């Protein structure tokens, strides 16, 4: 389930967008015990100036991203484009499930949830 404005219309600046992953949707609900789903989120938005310059409280902007946004604004070059809006901070989840030997398994997976996006 994503935010309603993702498809079409102005996308706005690069930021985290809600994306809920439901294990039922992908057909894993019979062997995944918990969670039923989780907020994985994703990144979307433009990386132009001045958005590429991080606002107060965020991580410092990547110089290369600022340079690229500057160049794209000054002299757009086909194929180069502006920086990309990508995950910058991620967090883990744990999944409880039945495996094929009917064991109950708890596994820890890193980098499964996008907490913060940035221009790179």
């Amino acid at each position, binding site marked *: 389930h994503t935010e309603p404005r993702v498809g079409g219309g102005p996308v706005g600046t690069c930021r985290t967008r809600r994306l809920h992953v439901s294990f039922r949707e992908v057909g894993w609900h019979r062997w995944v015990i918990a969670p039923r789903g989780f907020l994985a989120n994703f990144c979307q938005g433009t990386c132009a100036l001045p958005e590429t310059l991080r606002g107060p409280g965020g991580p410092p902007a990547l110089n290369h991203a600022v340079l690229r946004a500057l160049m794209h604004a000054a002299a757009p070059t086909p194929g180069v484009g502006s920086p990309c809006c990508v995950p910058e901070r991620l*967090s883990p989840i744990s999944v409880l499930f039945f495996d094929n030997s009917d064991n109950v*398994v708890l596994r820890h997976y890193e980098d499964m949830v996008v907490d913060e996006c940035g221009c790179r």
Partner: protein
Amino acid sequence: PASLGPAAALLQVLGLPETPRSVPTLRPVPPVMWRLFRSRNPQEARVGRPLKPCHVEELGVAGNIVRHIPDSGLSSRIIQPARTSGLCPEWTVVFDLSSVEPIERPTRARLELRLEAESEDTRGWELSVALLAEAEHPGPELLRVQAPPGLPLRADLLGTAVAANASVPRTLRLALALHPGAAATCGRLAEASLLLVTLDPRLCPLPRSRR
């Protein structure tokens, strides 16, 4: 079908080499696994500090995979009933460890037994554990644990029946014998399971062995 395309690739990334069956044999989830899940789930744990991805805090060991493995072949044979020589039945339990990948290293292997006593008197109960090789004859006694009041009975097998710093065997067969001690009665083994914690060195650094 998950065996094709991106779903298979994702399962591979999640460390599931084979596609899970669509309808597993459902069984109650053991309370210990719920507790561990809740303590490791960032949304539920609500802990101020980040969780250590390669550590199972509640069990106090390194590891990123915890499995609750039910016995897959409980059998018992009567040797001599307790009322004559003080011995009780001997049990054989078998654990299927084929789902553990060879690269995984065990950091905790806890045998959990639920014994049902014939009477309240379980004083002095002791359980001896031995490996059961193919030839049905138990090997030497590996360890002996006392049965605490208010069962269940637990025994740590790492370093005895399960070698540390090595791949786990595909099958673990144990011979268990109950020694009644002062209590002149025996018990019945109602349930046996193995709580196995492993560490995948591709995702987590191996703990350094104690000097």
